[in-house]
């Protein structure tokens, strides 16, 4: 009878599953040690020891391996196989020296254990990861790996282990999942599923979707394997000495060698002995306890680190930092994100580049409002216009990205046969997305955009200089002004190149004005510590969300909820900008409670917008030859979206009550309210620290109504577009 669930598929004529073959071809190490090359070389010089090692290994090869492989001289075959990289990565001297040391360490063991060479292999690894290093953060590496050169004669080679493979490997070297994979590495999780590997595809999608896999590092890794055998000639522990090469585009760069141990089932005691022998070599300085895997070692050889580029906003601020300095730091971080995500946005590598790009632009615009007291007025005016233009330029592409991303959810919302009719809608969205992206890429190629980046940089350096001379005292503020001409001159110089470019499109006057503004106008809060400004602004945003939210009842028009969504978003930006000014747990608790509210408002908005979009898409599709089934399916979907919108609306009350909870209110009060607030107190001794304006008044409100929704981008920010940036709130927080 058959025991267990295995259905015999592992015995099939196709010779086992992928999992069986990769698990055998890539056994997980039980311990890893870095090899100290100098120490190894030192021993390597000990010719006698090395000769002894060679002699002994040959002898054992004769006794055990050679007959088994039809007297193929195993070691020689291995050397042939690695010929391609020899002389660059490590050398046999290191391998022999390490093995000689280990032989020495094992010599005392009773019954005697000897180390015999088994085989060698050379594998080429192409590691990939997303731009932001999601695979690394998920705890591993993803690579296409293929055997380089011929396989050395080996007694242990099962059929079909040569790959190539697509392997997901944990940081500890254990293979988590893998599939046979020919060709270049996949670009998206969907490619893996499309190749028939649903399990790995789903697994990857959960970690990286919708991001694209980009080349991380490639490396050639060679392994010299040895077996530790007992008196019966039985392998009781396996060893692998690995090293390799990587490339920085030109020269080959050696990857330092390391040692891996592999246990054989049922020989735990010997394995423990082997690890303690290695530990002694650690004490002697010949080995280093613990080693990262090939990818991290290859990156290290290139002077790089794993983990990708973070677009997470986290700017360290000090409470008594002058506001302009703090503002400059915040804007500079955002500008950096804009720059790092720009190439991927232009190339449309994946939707997240544009998303991160947009979030940084939007934060910048929010910052121009939130931090306005720290900025000269003309700077605000100019850059609000320019970043507003940029935000608007990115909108249409993002809209289509969001709809495309939602296709799976749309399908899931409908009965399967109806869902199948949505195909033409998806094709239509793809066409629209491609057209929108073409326009976006063109906008990003304009002199206007180039000038924006350059001028913004110049303005930020000028801003930093404004603040640098400033201290919380009035006298120092004067000094700060005295500091300005040089800064402005520098700024003017920096923007000179851009000014030339801008002239070509006839907006040079704007640039001049901006630069000039830096020269003549000190920002109103040049000497205010950032803490005071932060307290004032955050408190004001908070009060507004609170009062607007409390005014919402069951009969309130949905437009009020959309207005509240925008207010909540502004509060969110304030909390994130100033997160590092208050105890981090407190800030994160506030962000968390706000997020619950935002998710609800964002979803509500999305569902409303999507219903409108479906109607517009349907109208458009109806003008082309479109199957009526598709239009019917879209109608069905629209009804479903409406149902969910109602549901979401009903949930609002609970979400808002959670935000309006007593402890949350006290936390805001404690941290941000006036001079009594933790942050406000920092500014209390300063020149303008006491000037906390009455919050929430109608006049004040109008003055700050220059929200993103009202400066020329209402089409993309108001209730007519999906909450594109809020869409990320569900999977990683509003960035």
């Amino acid at each position: 009878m058959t025991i267990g669930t295995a259905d015999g598929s592992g015995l099939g004529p196709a010779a086992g599953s992928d999992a069986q073959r990769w698990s055998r071809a890539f056994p997980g190490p039980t311990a890893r040690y870095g090899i100290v090359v100098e120490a190894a070389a030192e021993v390597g010089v000990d010719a006698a020891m090395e000769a002894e090692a060679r002699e002994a290994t040959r002898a054992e090869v004769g006794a055990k391996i050679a007959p088994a492989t039809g007297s193929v001289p195993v070691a020689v075959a291995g050397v042939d196989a690695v010929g391609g990289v020899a002389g660059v990565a490590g050398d046999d001297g290191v391998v022999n020296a390490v093995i000689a040391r280990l032989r020495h360490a094992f010599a005392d063991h009773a019954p005697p254990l000897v180390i015999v060479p088994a085989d060698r292999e050379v594998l080429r690894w192409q590691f990939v990861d997303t731009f932001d290093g999601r695979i690394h953060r998920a705890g591993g590496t993803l690579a296409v790996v293929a055997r380089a050169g011929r396989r050395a004669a080996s007694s242990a080679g099962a059929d079909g282990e040569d790959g190539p493979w697509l392997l997901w490997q944990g940081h500890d070297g254990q293979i988590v999942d893998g599939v046979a994979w020919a060709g270049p590495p996949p670009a998206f999780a969907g490619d893996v599923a499309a190749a028939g590997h649903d399990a790995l595809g789903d697994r990857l999608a959960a970690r990286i979707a919708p991001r694209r896999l980009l080349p991380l590092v490639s490396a050639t890794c060679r392994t010299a394997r040895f077996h530790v055998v007992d008196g019966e000639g039985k392998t009781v522990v396996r060893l692998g000495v690995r090293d390799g090469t990587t490339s920085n585009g030109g020269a080959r760069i050696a990857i330092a060698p390391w040692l891996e141990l592999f246990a054989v089932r049922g020989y735990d005691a010997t394995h423990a002995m082997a690890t303690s022998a290695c530990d002694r070599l650690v004490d002697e300085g010949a080995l280093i306890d613990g080693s990262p895997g090939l990818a991290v070692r290859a990156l290290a050889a290139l002077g790089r680190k794993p983990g990708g580029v973070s677009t997470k906003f986290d700017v360290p601020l000090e409470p008594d930092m002058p506001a302009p300095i703090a503002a400059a730091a915040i804007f500079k971080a955002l500008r950096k994100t804009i720059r790092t995500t720009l190439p991927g946005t232009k190339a449309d590598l994946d939707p997240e580049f544009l998303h991160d790009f947009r979030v940084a632009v939007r934060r910048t615009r929010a910052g121009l409002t939130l931090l306005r007291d720290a900025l000269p007025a003309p700077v605000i005016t100019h850059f609000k216009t320019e970043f507003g233009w940029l935000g608007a330029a990115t909108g249409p592409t993002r809209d289509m990205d969001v709809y495309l991303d939602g296709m799976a959810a749309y399908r899931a919302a409908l009965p399967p046969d109806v869902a199948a009719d949505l195909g033409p809608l998806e094709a239509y969205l793809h066409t629209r997305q491609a057209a929108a992206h073409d326009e976006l890429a063109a906008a990003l190629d304009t002199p206007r955009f180039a000038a924006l980046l350059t001028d913004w940089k110049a303005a930020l350096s000028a801003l930093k200089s404004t603040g640098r001379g400033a201290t919380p005292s009035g006298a120092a503020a004067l000094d700060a002004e005295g500091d300005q001409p040089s800064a402005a001159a520098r700024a003017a110089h920096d923007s000179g190149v851009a000014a030339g470019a801008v002239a070509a499109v006839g907006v040079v006057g704007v640039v001049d004005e901006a630069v000039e503004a830096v020269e003549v106008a000190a920002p109103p809060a040049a000497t205010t510590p950032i803490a005071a400004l932060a307290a004032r602004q955050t408190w004001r945003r908070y009060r507004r969300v609170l009062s607007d939210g409390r005014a919402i009842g069951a009969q309130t028009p949905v437009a009020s909820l959309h207005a509240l969504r925008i207010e909540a978003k502004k509060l969110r930006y304030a909390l994130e900008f100033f997160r590092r000014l208050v105890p981090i747990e407190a800030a994160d608790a506030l962000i968390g409670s706000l997020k619950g509210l935002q998710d609800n408002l964002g979803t509500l908005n999305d569902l409303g917008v999507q219903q409108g979009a479906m109607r517009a898409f349907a109208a458009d599709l109806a003008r082309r030859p479109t199957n009526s089934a598709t239009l019917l399916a879209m109608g069905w979907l629209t009804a479903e979206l409406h149902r969910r919108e109602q549901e979401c609306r009903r949930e609002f009350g609970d979400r808002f009550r959670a935000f309006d909870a007593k402890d949350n209110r006290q936390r805001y009060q404690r941290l941000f309210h006036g001079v009594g607030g933790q942050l406000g107190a920092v500014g209390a001794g300063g020149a303008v620290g006491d000037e906390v304006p009455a919050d929430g008044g109608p006049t004040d409100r109008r003055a700050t109504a220059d929200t993103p929704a009202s400066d020329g981008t209402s089409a993309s920010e108001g209730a007519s577009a999906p909450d594109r940036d809020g869409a990320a709130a569900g999977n990683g927080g509003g960035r």
Partner: protein
Amino acid sequence: MRIVASYAIKGGVGKTATAVNLAWEAWRGGATVLVWDMDPQGAASFYFRVAPEVAGGAKGLIKGASDVAALVRGSDFDGLDVLPADFTYRHLDLYLDAAKRPTRRLVRLLAPLAERYDLAILDCAPGISLVSESVFALADALLVPTIPTTLSLRTLDQLAVHLRLNDEGGVLVRPFLSLVDRRKALHRALADAILDGGLPTPFPFLRTAIPYLSAVERMGVQRAPVGVFAPRDAAAAAYRALWGEVRDVIGAR
């Protein structure tokens, strides 16, 4: 986990060589394989260079006191493991007899290993005993190496009678020709008669015949499956073909 027993009433017919070489072929094909060396002589353990000893012995195994997973030893082939023999297996009958529902005992014994292996090959001791009766109930198929001689064929009839009398008709019994020496007229005549159907047999024979070859005997010197040290030898080819047939018999997809 599929379970296959290499079994014969008669001794010296190539049971252990069958178990070891089929296990290796299955492993080479990609399967994870466990060989349980049930013969107290420990020949399969010897071939795999594994010490023929089991902590707790037969008693611990049958009474369920031993953690069977901890008794398994990896062979030199990663993914082909051995549950070694122990000299106390000579008393396996006694302990099984003392146990309630002996067959259930063996199932429970192997259960912890069921998810780890695609295939278990039991290398049985010769004879008919309570152990072999339990194996009949446990195995998906009995592979019976059969030398084309009168005595060897006679034991097949005995097995058939035994299975019928004991209502053990459920197990697939698949004899195959073993140690066929083409130089001997009787071997040739019987082998041909069996394979072309001229001689009625109680069970259908597998088509592959394992010839009498020195490579099989050299396993004792090399202490490895023939495919390892003589991959191009006719013996290796014969076991490969035999595994192909067995794989079909046990219903692998």
